[in-house]
């Protein structure tokens, strides 16, 4: 189990970032130790972070300052102009469990359906959804997680 986990997540001393001579090696937690305990995934950190949160496997703090208002929104947005690909369903819930409204609105996304000229090229450049997806949230190879609604299931 430990060996298997060690093979899936690269040790800090050997990750091309940490200096193997750094006194931090051996003190900092190893990725395999923490991530092997969480719901698995096939990309990114190999952890399904949304599931980990929903199932209570992790309970990350929502705020540090007691006066901070923690905002959650539970509406879905359908993005239908997706060419031949299935329609994109954007779940506000899964996103606001992690992020505040102001992280996306209005700096990256205007809060009006149809007002954001999003396309995959821009996302691949790190704009719009690509600000996080492909960097810290699940990567852009996971097409069907966003393009999840077949066109014929959409009510006219």
């Amino acid at each position, binding site marked *: 189990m430990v060996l298997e986990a060690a*093979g*899936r*997540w*690269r040790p800090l001393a050997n*990750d*091309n*970032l*940490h*200096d193997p001579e*750094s*006194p*931090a*090696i051996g*003190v*900092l*937690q190893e*990725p395999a130790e*923490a*991530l092997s305990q*969480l719901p698995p995934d096939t*990309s*990114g*950190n*190999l*952890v399904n*972070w949304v599931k980990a949160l929903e199932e209570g496997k*992790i309970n*990350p*703090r*929502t*705020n*540090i*300052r007691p006066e*901070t208002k*923690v905002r959650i929104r539970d509406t879905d947005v359908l993005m239908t102009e997706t060419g031949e690909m299935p329609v994109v369903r954007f779940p506000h819930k899964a996103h606001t*469990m*992690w*992020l*505040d409204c*102001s*992280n996306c609105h209005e700096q990256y996304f205007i809060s009006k359906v149809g007002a954001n000229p999003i396309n995959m090229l821009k*996302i*691949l*450049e*790190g*704009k719009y959804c*690509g*600000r*996080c997806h*492909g*960097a*810290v949230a699940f*990567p*852009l*190879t996971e097409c069907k997680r966003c393009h999840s609604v077949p066109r014929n299931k959409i009510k006219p």
Partner: protein
Amino acid sequence: MARFLSQLKSMHRVSRLLLWVCALMTMLPLHAEYGDVVLNRRAEKEGMPPVIYPHWFHRIRFRCKVCHFELGFEMRAGSNDVTMQDIIDGKFCGMCHNDEVAWGVENCDLCHSGRPGMKSHIYGGHQTAGPGIW
């Protein structure tokens, strides 16, 4: 004809070797952990190794909104001009790295643990190596 056949054979051998290399590369994680950030806007100029910020470690304990909303970290590697004085004053990392929530600033080596010469960037990729603008 015989020469052509032996050439074909050696080409076959090379392509098989290449296939093995590709297979090995997909099996082994060759990168840092997904979402790892190197911060080196000031560190090396001021004589310290670059900082490595692991998103995976922090998101187990804090939601994104804590740092990117409450603490005001812009969501782009290298775009936050953070000084040690800011941190000592309780801003940015110093909101938690104060010996109360997490270890304090006297533990220099734990954050300043990167190999020399790395640029501020988001590293680590599993299938994608991060978006173009980084």
